[in-house]
């Protein structure tokens, strides 16, 4: 049964050292506030799963919390490389990280298979691609009717998934709209799902019948954190802070600059700070 909790409790109760965890969001609705709370609570040995590990995972890797990454695109989209992640992979700083690398198609199918309760996903993929050589979790399976060789990857079943959404109703049902990404799948594939939301409303009675909704009985905990996706964005609430993504490149380039930035903006910060960070981005709401 879902519980409405302060973010610190929602994270403390649902995340453990050594967990496999997905902080999912496909450019839109990245659960930054939840990730920062996990950083403050100093979890370790995490297996971080995400299609597009961007700034948030750069930060978690840079803080030495990850023992393994499962991903399909590790970049700062439109800006460049992830410099803390590079430092970990290329130099083992602050600790080495194991890498399980896929394509987007494989990760999307693997979340879908996880949500669907299947042990693996089957799709037409990786044809001619070299990832199949370096990742033993990419295998082949033959169609029993045509003989065609298809790709198979294990279903993703995180111990816990964190996502950010527009709103919850009083019962704890959760609405996601706009670029919905793989968040529904990530939540349903996980053993526990924690959702941060911009706001709570009475009910969803006036909404369109076919919207993306997670019923309350699929969610473990909900925390209200306005602005909680910044510098990502929340459709209908505030815009993407593209300037912050551009800025990150400089911060992450230097180990000391990174530590100083994390100290000020994460370790010494609280979830309530996010509301202020998106104030100027709400302009054209």
């Amino acid at each position, binding site marked *: 049964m879902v519980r409405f909790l302060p973010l610190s409790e929602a994270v403390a109760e649902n995340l453990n050292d050594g967990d496999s965890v997905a902080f999912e969001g*496909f450019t839109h609705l990245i659960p930054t506030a939840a990730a920062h709370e996990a950083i403050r609570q100093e979890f370790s040995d995490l297996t971080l799963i995400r299609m597009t590990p961007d700034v948030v995972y750069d930060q978690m890797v840079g803080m030495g919390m990850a023992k393994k990454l499962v991903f399909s*695109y590790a970049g700062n989209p439109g800006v460049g490389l992830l410099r803390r992640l590079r430092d970990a992979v290329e130099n083992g700083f602050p600790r080495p990280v194991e890498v399980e690398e896929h394509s*987007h198609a494989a990760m*999307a199918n693997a*979340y879908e298979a996880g949500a669907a309760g299947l042990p693996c996903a089957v799709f037409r993929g990786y044809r001619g*691609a070299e990832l199949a050589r370096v990742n033993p979790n990419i295998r082949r399976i033959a169609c029993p009717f045509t003989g065609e060789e298809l790709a198979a990857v294990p279903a993703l079943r995180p111990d816990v998934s964190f996502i950010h959404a527009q709103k919850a109703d009083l019962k704890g049902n959760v609405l996601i709209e706009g*670029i919905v990404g793989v968040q529904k799948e990530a939540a349903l594939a996980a053993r526990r799902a924690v959702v941060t939301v911009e706001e709570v409303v009475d009910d969803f009675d006036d909404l369109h019948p076919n919207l993306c909704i997670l019923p309350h009985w699929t969610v473990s905990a909900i925390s209200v954190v306005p602005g909680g996706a910044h510098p990502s964005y929340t459709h209908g609430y505030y815009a993407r802070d593209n300037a912050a993504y551009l800025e990150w490149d400089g911060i992450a380039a230097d180990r000391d600059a990174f530590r100083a930035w994390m100290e000020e903006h994460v370790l010494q910060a609280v979830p309530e700070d996010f509301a202020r960070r998106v104030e100027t981005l709400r302009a054209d709401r």
Partner: protein
Amino acid sequence: MSGADFTPNEMMTIAASRALKNEDVCFVGIGAPSAACNIARLTHAPDITLIYESGTIGTAPDVLPLSIGDGELCDTALTTVPVPEMFRYWLQGGRITIGFLGAAQLDRFGNINTTVVGDYDHPKVRLPGGGGAPEIASSSQEVFITLAQSKRSMVEKIDFYTSFGHGEGGDHRQRLGIDTKGPTLLITDMAIWKPDPETKEFTVVSLHPGVTRDHVQETCGWTVLFADDVEETPPPSALELATLRDLKARTEKAHKGA
């Protein structure tokens, strides 16, 4: 190329935009492909369907997105679908006519590396990785590639096969059971290239205005083949150039924030 009133990069984007048709359904990679696709939409192909891997179908952004999932893409789309559906029904389902990719490293057969420089397990540079590209390269009906030429990016041998082009050339795709056409066009800041019908090696078919064969060879890591009749790419029209520059100006303003 000095003295020209447009940059090589502008010529590249505009030449790429011209290759797109009004009826195309494009799976758009970020960066140069995104600019080319939107210039096509804003000039000769107003009804072109642009699809970004974030799930936006038929999008018409007023400014170029910084990422593949900026809000602008959803706001202007015909509809936005979940990412698993995007990769299953739309890409794997064979609905994409043109997959438009960039590259960190490219070889003469259109194979692309965006994964690592150096050895995979001990990379010199850890690049972002493939993202959607491995399946864009195999499931799109055709693939267009665009990148700025340099000996670092156009190499004799790529360090990692992120996305399969024509492999070792010839019928290598068919031998792997891949039934799509693969890379059929390469647009650089110097020239337009097409694969040789037999060997599938990229061959220069058109030089951009002011570019010589030497320019092309000096900025390419393999020995360049030229077609028997190499044409000259028509320079950007006033409309093309104005459209591109307006788009870039709007985009730069938007990305710097209010």
